[in-house]
């Protein structure tokens, strides 16, 4: 069973910086899943933290749908798509295990009213479904199977009708999330993982401080989404935090660690650390260990 983590970095260099942060965060915590990036930004140090680089050429209008193309682009059996502006704090095995055998999974909930890429109740009525799946497309699990292929064909079909369906963004890009959410409802295929699995969280509705520190492997916060809850996600999807310094500080730290690993060999001890040892050794000898 070949598993991969799949991400996309297309367009501006900042997306490559983000994707490198994602790859480096996975490497830092010792996650061994094969990492694949789809990109048109070839002049980046991908080899630092990605096992495979797939060149991207295509129509940018459909970029959000590229996350569902790993079955065609790779030989993987199980794919975990993670948005490039994410950082991973825990190894991914629980996500793969939770998705194994289920075909297609996202984290979210069924909704039948409210506003999500348009009037949800209206969409449900015109399409004849009770509810559609609402989720964050920053993390999607899927497997190689005929059912998944059929689901993707449905998603493609809905994507081509996105405008007629009222699924629009502020930019010319075709949104994937409502098409997937509706396809899940119409096909009855796929699983919505409950939000409290905490496989992924974007800290939307943050209350107080966002604790984020890759050096301490720390990501925890309180937030008001479906309810007020304390969250320690496996994947932190920066999303709007891409515009906050704290996220970029983590990217800088990860980059620094990557450079450090290149410059220093196994078990390197800095002169400062050696000096500290020397002082402590004397203190232990004289005072602590009579």
């Amino acid at each position, binding site marked *: 069973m070949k598993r991969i983590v799949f991400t996309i970095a297309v367009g501006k260099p900042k997306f490559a910086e983000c994707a490198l942060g994602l790859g480096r965060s996975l490497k830092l915590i010792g996650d061994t899943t094969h990492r694949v990036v789809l990109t048109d930004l070839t002049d980046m140090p991908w080899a630092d933290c990605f096992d495979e680089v797939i060149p991207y050429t295509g129509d940018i209008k459909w970029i959000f749908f590229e996350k569902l193309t790993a079955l065609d682009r790779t030989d993987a059996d199980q794919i975990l798509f993670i948005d490039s502006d994410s950082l991973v704090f825990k190894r991914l095995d629980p996500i793969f295990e939770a998705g194994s055998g289920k075909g297609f999974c996202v984290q979210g909930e069924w909704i039948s009213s409210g506003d999500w890429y348009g009037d949800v109740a209206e969409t449900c009525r015109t399409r004849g479904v009770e509810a559609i799946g609402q989720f964050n497309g920053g993390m999607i699990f899927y497997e190689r199977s005929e059912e998944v292929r059929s689901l993707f064909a449905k998603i493609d079909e809905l994507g081509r009708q996105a405008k007629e369906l009222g699924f629009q963004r502020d930019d010319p890009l075709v949104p994937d999330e409502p098409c997937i959410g509706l396809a899940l409802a119409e096909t009855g295929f796929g699983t919505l993982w409950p939000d409290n699995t905490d496989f992924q969280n974007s800290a939307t509705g943050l209350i107080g401080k966002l604790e984020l520190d890759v050096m301490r492997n720390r990501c925890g916060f309180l937030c008001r989404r479906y309810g007020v809850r304390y969250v320690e996600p496996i994947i932190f999807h920066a999303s709007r935090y891409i515009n906050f310094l704290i996220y970029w500080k983590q990217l800088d730290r990860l980059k620094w*660690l990557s450079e*450090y690993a290149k410059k220093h060999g196994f078990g390197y001890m800095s002169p400062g650390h050696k000096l500290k040892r020397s002082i402590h050794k004397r203190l232990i000898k004289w005072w602590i260990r009579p």
Partner: protein
Amino acid sequence: MNRAVFTLAFGAPKYAKFALGLGRSLRLIGDSTRRIVVTDIRRDDWQPAFDEVVYVPRPENPYHAKFRAFDYFDADAALFIDADSLVFRRLDPIWKAFAGQPIGVQGWTISHGDEWHGDISNVLNQTGFSQLHQFNGGLVYYENSAESRQVLDQVEHYRQAYDQTGFNPFRGHVPDETCLSLAIAKTGLGLCVPDRRDYMNTGVGLIGDLRMNIRRAECSFVCRRRELRFVRPYVFHAHLYSQFLVYWKQLKELEKLEAYEKAHPFGWMSPGHKLRRSIERRILKSQGRI
């Protein structure tokens, strides 16, 4: 299965302090495995940190005494942990991972061009193996079985014929790790789990802070070994950190906690804590909340 975790403490009194720290750390986190210390240091405070104390004369080669568990006590499986270690997470996953294996260690594979107690190319040429496992002998699992004895007999064989292996001696002695590595290669028995399991880590190649706090059951750090990685080990093998104050602070703290336990009964509340309760009760009453 009758399991025992054991350690060795021979010679200088500091080794007894290390071993007591290990036993106390296991007790503090509520690990219920039977704890045994094999020692030549007579003290009256081995218990309650250890369930059993086995007094034996100091062996000729103390490094190899770790392979003689079943000469010292009865058990079906033994987990040796070096005395200068502290345990921060219960050991059950380690027992589970190694169950049914004649021998278990944590490490990686090395071959031509690598260095470990000398030039590995030289060792491979002399012994005829194509590769070996490199590991830290601070954590070794083995069972009381015919297969284990087969491996341990080979360890003894290589100890006696060490000058024909191509490995260098360590501090004037034949090291245990190299002999065990050769024995595993020779018999094809045993399991070397990947370093990424984090069952044990020595903090070698530390970058930044070593966060170690026995009261918080916290031990984590970033280090550069084979790869640069964030680590939160089950067993922290102090190794070179036995010369740092942070390790001795933990030993002192563990000693203090044991003394506290002796001096105070179940559920004891300090006068300061009672005073705080009294003040806070008044505050809560004044707010009409109780």
